[in-house]
């Protein structure tokens, strides 16, 4: 993995529905490696690398991230917010946020009536250092979105960042595009609005009509102390999804991915995700049905400020994407 590429893609601003900055960063990295590159009507970034077989494989990763949207600005310049995607009020408080125009702020809450553990998003606000509504409105408008600021935490092979979900997968697809070899047309699709209900992927797949889609996302793990029981562990390879709340992956697709992994001696794990859905399902139900599967990057602490992945899994996922693309026979 090109670490600069990973850092730039993971750090880019891009809450659901406002992904343009993230899209531009990804575009910069993959432009030299594709024949066509465009944003569709919803903002999905679509990169095409032509093949000769007449078949189409789509690799999709969502580029949106969770965030906060400004609902109201009070007389003293505090910004009240609603969540964009699955944001925990508890995990928002005491964190730094950033708006598209780089305005910084910190998150806190109304502490008169409730303890921190009891709050809802209604009591959460952003302080951008403004003293009045007018001063705040010079920097931020109602309807603007903020994302959580995060630094990379390098812990040997393991790396934490608030936005591993799902920019690490965007970085994997972007990295794979550099050396992608395939007989088939390759569509690398960086989707929008996954975090608010897997909205972007379906329309992208509708237009592309792939013969096979493979989504890349993160999945939760069961290898931390006293965690919810999950089969997947960090550092044991990317996973081949069997099921999540949005999809049951057809056996033919799972076998296809596993066979490709075996040929290239890539370790993979089976994944049954307990909670949450992914673009995989939205794509499966497009048009008359599309063969759709998912490779996941095991990730600790999803939707918290310290989403942690193992770089061995990340590198293996890049290889697995390349291995799938090289397969001549599609499921």
């Amino acid at each position, binding site marked *: 993995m090109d670490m600069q590429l990973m850092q730039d893609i993971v750090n880019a601003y891009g809450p*659901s*529905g*406002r992904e343009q900055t993230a899209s531009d960063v990804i575009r910069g990295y993959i432009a030299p490696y594709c024949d066509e590159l465009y944003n*569709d*009507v*919803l*903002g999905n970034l679509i990169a095409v690398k032509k093949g000769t077989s007449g078949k189409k494989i789509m690799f999709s990763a969502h580029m949106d991230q969770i965030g906060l*949207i400004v*609902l*109201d600005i*009070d007389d003293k310049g505090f910004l*009240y917010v*609603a*969540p*964009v995607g699955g944001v925990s009020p508890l995990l928002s408080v005491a964190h730094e946020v950033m708006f598209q125009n780089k305005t910084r702020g910190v998150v806190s809450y109304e502490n008169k009536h409730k303890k921190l553990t009891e709050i809802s998003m*209604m009591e959460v606000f952003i302080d951008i250092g403004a003293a009045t509504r007018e001063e705040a409105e010079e920097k931020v408008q*109602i*309807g603007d979105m903020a994302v959580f600021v995060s630094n990379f935490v390098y812990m040997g092979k393991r790396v934490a960042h608030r936005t591993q979900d799902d920019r690490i997968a965007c970085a994997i697809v972007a990295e794979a595009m550099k050396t992608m070899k395939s007989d088939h047309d390759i569509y690398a699709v960086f989707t929008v*609005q996954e975090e*608010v209900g897997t*909205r*972007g992927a*379906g*329309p*992208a797949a*509708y*237009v592309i009509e792939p013969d096979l889609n493979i989504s890349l996302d993160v999945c939760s793990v069961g290898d931390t102390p006293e965690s919810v029981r999950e089969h997947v562990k960090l550092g044991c390879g990317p996973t081949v999804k069997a099921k999540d709340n949005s999809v049951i992956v057809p056996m033919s697709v799972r076998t296809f991915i596993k066979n490709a992994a075996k040929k290239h001696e890539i370790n993979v794990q089976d994944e049954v995700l307990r909670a949450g859905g992914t673009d995989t399902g939205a794509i499966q139900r497009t048009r008359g049905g599309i063969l759709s599967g998912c490779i996941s990057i095991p990730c600790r602490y999803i939707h918290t400020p310290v989403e942690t992945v193992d770089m061995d899994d990340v590198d293996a996922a890049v290889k697995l994407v390349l291995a799938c693309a090289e397969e001549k026979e599609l499921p």
Partner: protein
Amino acid sequence: MLERLKVLSELYGVSGDERRVRKYIREQVEPMCDEVYTDNMGNLYAHKKGNGKRVMVCAHMDEVGMIVTGILDNGLLAFSAAGLDSRAIISKRVAVGKDDVPGVIGSKAIHLQSEAERKTVLLMKDLNVDIGAKDKEDALKYVKPGDYISFTTKFSDFGEGLFKGKALDDRVGCAILIELLKDTYECDFTAVFTVMEEIGLRGAQAAVYNVKPEVALAIEGTLCNELPENPRRKSVTKLNEGAVISFMDGGSLVPESMLNAIKDTAIQHNIPWQFRQGTSGSNDMGPVHIGLAGCKTGVISVPCRYIHSPVSVASKSDFENVYRLAKAFLRDGRFNEV
């Protein structure tokens, strides 16, 4: 437009049983359009052919209500409801079935309630509709399971510049959409009066397939929780403060280009407007913006106090301003900017 709203508000049209509303709208719009048609779900399409972008504007015909699920031996009707708060429907007058059989939703008189009962919320399953039948056999002469149940609230003026009535969500949208059809626009324009919005945005899923819009707009009646006095983020909108412009709700995020186009239209034409300062609730634009290849959508609404109840309240000026804003957006060809 207000006269038409009165008629629309008083028509019975619970989700899945929109035929009365559809019939009325059809009569109104037929002289103004190139073609008027329905689909298998019951959506009504009013098409004004033109060159340029395919633009679709939606308002939903259905309202919240109830359906008869069974008839008890004593002649009372059991029912189920969607989108209604059981606390809001007790002691209300209703009309049942295609013959509009009058009924009331009864409950135990306060004298007979224990201390505990007074503090307990009655659920739908605890409530029945009384149509005055002697017993089950008698009731079956007038109604049957599957019949729709609708509130009978009359529409009227209210206070200064306000009106009250049932089903303002979304008959305000229907009335505005009919009015919009009087004009011509530089696009291929389809007004869609959708069905079954209140039970899961169902009609719009077929509409997007049939119209294949490039740009779509919903005209809605929306939340206005300003009584008692609430901070703006809890009231969502305020009465008399103008047309409501959405940036995000539970079903869709309005793209920046669309948000700016709508906002700029309001500013340019001096039309009072306000943001919808809440993100809960959804509308037909949810399925529309991600139907087929996707399209650009926006939502303009009339604030309505007490929606999803037997009676709601809205303002004439807001109603007028939503119409003006939607019309200006279309007349100015703003759909070409998004």
